[in-house]
């Protein structure tokens, strides 16, 4: 074999190794029987997986993360669905600007968003930690909601709304009767994407978390600074499999990849 024909397989192997490798290491480490986070694992046990469920701060931060992921995504959809509708159905002046502004949280680094929110909103206005986190997560998920819902709206003919109106429905009624049922798949996909994005969010949450109120990833970092045992690896593995499970189910039942 010459160098040329080796190039593609070798590149492919390296890419996969870099993507999957760390994940495999963490999974292996979480079954370790040793006292410290190490690879290769020393022996095999489920004790660190069991320990995850006994750490109290994990329970509280998991509940907080879950609340933010569900609540923030729901709020982003409540704002995002009408926004997407307006962007896709009406020729609004400045629609492109709105689209860009709404997408900004995807492009701007989270650390900047977090710092900005902390410095100019949270501190001067004395906003509560939970509220600040909730607003931040809503803003972070909004671009995904708008993008995914817009895509499914663009695939839906707008004349069915006129047809519904001519059959006696109001404009708003037509939206709920014939638009919503036909973009349900897009909304579900946006929800899942938003949920995963919010749940895995670190930099913004890092800035906004405060005493007693933390999201799970922030809590894991804090835990590792004090205790260097494999329970964080165990928790990471559990979360990774949860995410994979959700996305797999979504693809299976909703055709997720059509919308994203």
């Amino acid at each position, binding site marked *: 074999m010459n160098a040329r024909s080796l190039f593609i397989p070798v590149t492919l192997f390296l890419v996969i190794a870099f993507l999957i490798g760390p994940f495999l290491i963490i999974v292996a480490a979480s079954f370790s029987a040793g006292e410290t986070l190490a690879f290769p694992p020393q022996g095999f046990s489920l004790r660190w997986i069991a320990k995850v469920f006994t750490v109290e701060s994990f329970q509280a931060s998991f509940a907080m993360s879950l609340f933010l992921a569900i609540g923030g995504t729901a709020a982003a959809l409540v704002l995002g669905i009408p926004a997407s509708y307006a962007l896709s159905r009406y020729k609004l002046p400045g629609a492109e600007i709105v689209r860009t502004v709404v997408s900004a949280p995807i492009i701007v680094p989270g650390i900047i968003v977090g710092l900005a929110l902390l410095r100019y909103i949270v501190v001067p206005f004395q906003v509560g930690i939970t509220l600040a986190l909730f607003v931040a997560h809503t803003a972070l998920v909004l671009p995904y909601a708008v993008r995914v819902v817009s895509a499914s709206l663009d695939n839906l*003919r707008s*004349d*069915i709304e*006129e*047809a*519904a*109106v*001519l*059959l*006696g*429905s*109001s404009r708003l*009624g037509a939206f709920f*009767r*014939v638009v919503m*049922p*036909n973009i349900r798949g897009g909304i579900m996909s946006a929800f899942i994407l938003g949920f995963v994005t919010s749940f895995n969010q670190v930099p913004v949450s890092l800035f906004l978390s405060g005493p007693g109120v933390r999201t799970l990833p922030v809590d894991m970092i804090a835990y590792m600074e004090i205790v260097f045992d494999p329970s964080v690896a165990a928790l990471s593995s559990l979360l990774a499999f949860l995410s994979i499970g959700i996305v797999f189910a979504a693809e299976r039942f909703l055709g997720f990849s059509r919308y994203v």
Partner: protein
Amino acid sequence: MSDASYLSLEKLTLAYGDTVAVADLDLDIRKGELIALLGPSGCGKTTTMRAIAGLLPVKSGQVRLDGADMTRVPANKRAVGLVFQSYALFPHLSVYENVAFGLKLKGMRGAELDTKVQAGLKSVGLSSFANRKPAELSGGQQQRVALARSMVMEPKVLLLDEPLSNLDARLRLEMRTELQRVQKETGVTMIFVTHDQAEALALADRIVVMKGGAIEQIGTPEDIYNRPVSSFVADFVGFENIFPLEGGKLRTSGGLIELSGEAPSAAGLAWRPRMVTLGTGPFRGTVRGTSFAGDSREYLLDTSLGAIKAEVEAALPAHALGADLLFDLPAGKAALLSKFS
């Protein structure tokens, strides 16, 4: 309300933003009439239809239906049905649910609803497709669902947007027959929009030819086909040789030409290719193109009058390219145009 104006448009002006699409349009339609709005794209026919449906706000003027002013009545309260060009069926609902949609909104439930929907499906021959989704039907079947969905609402006026243009030739004849049958059975007033003159001629009681946001001519299919009033209508319905008239003489690219026979008084004259006499006559032309169309043969002639199209029986001996021919434009056969543009 007189019988002649069941639906009337009075000085109707419609605009998209500042662009006026239809200006000062007057039209009276009788109850139970089948009207075609005919014209090229951009003539305002679809705009007019949307204004009748209430989907487009009226800038000025009035829409009156069955004695009531509809100008400001919202689309969902007008009792006007519309069969969209794309059919616009609700993709998430079955055929049955599509047809039931409007009736349910009226508050109809139970046996009464079922009877109505079944009757509607039966009338378009789709009873056995009730549980299918629109995506599982052919284009022709989808259109019949759209027709049934509008007709079960018993609209005062049924509008159809290019009802035949998406169908293949065989289905087109079927749908044409279907529309005429529905119209005869229910007596509903129908208005359809089309850019196809053959469709309008075949289906309509009266044809409204539109151009540039205004009505060019209203008449029966025979009127429109045989007696176009303007060069625009003449051109649209297949008169290929159209000339303005000046002091009884034809204004052509080769100068003013005297016609054989007595010159009529009109702004212009128009001949179908079939009306051109080939073989004899005062004019001379050279065959530049020829095409065989089964029953007939068409010739494109280079003449001192400009290009002339002639059509003769295919059974007659053919003329070769480059052949010199005598021909005539008989004044007695020409359509008299009162308007030349």
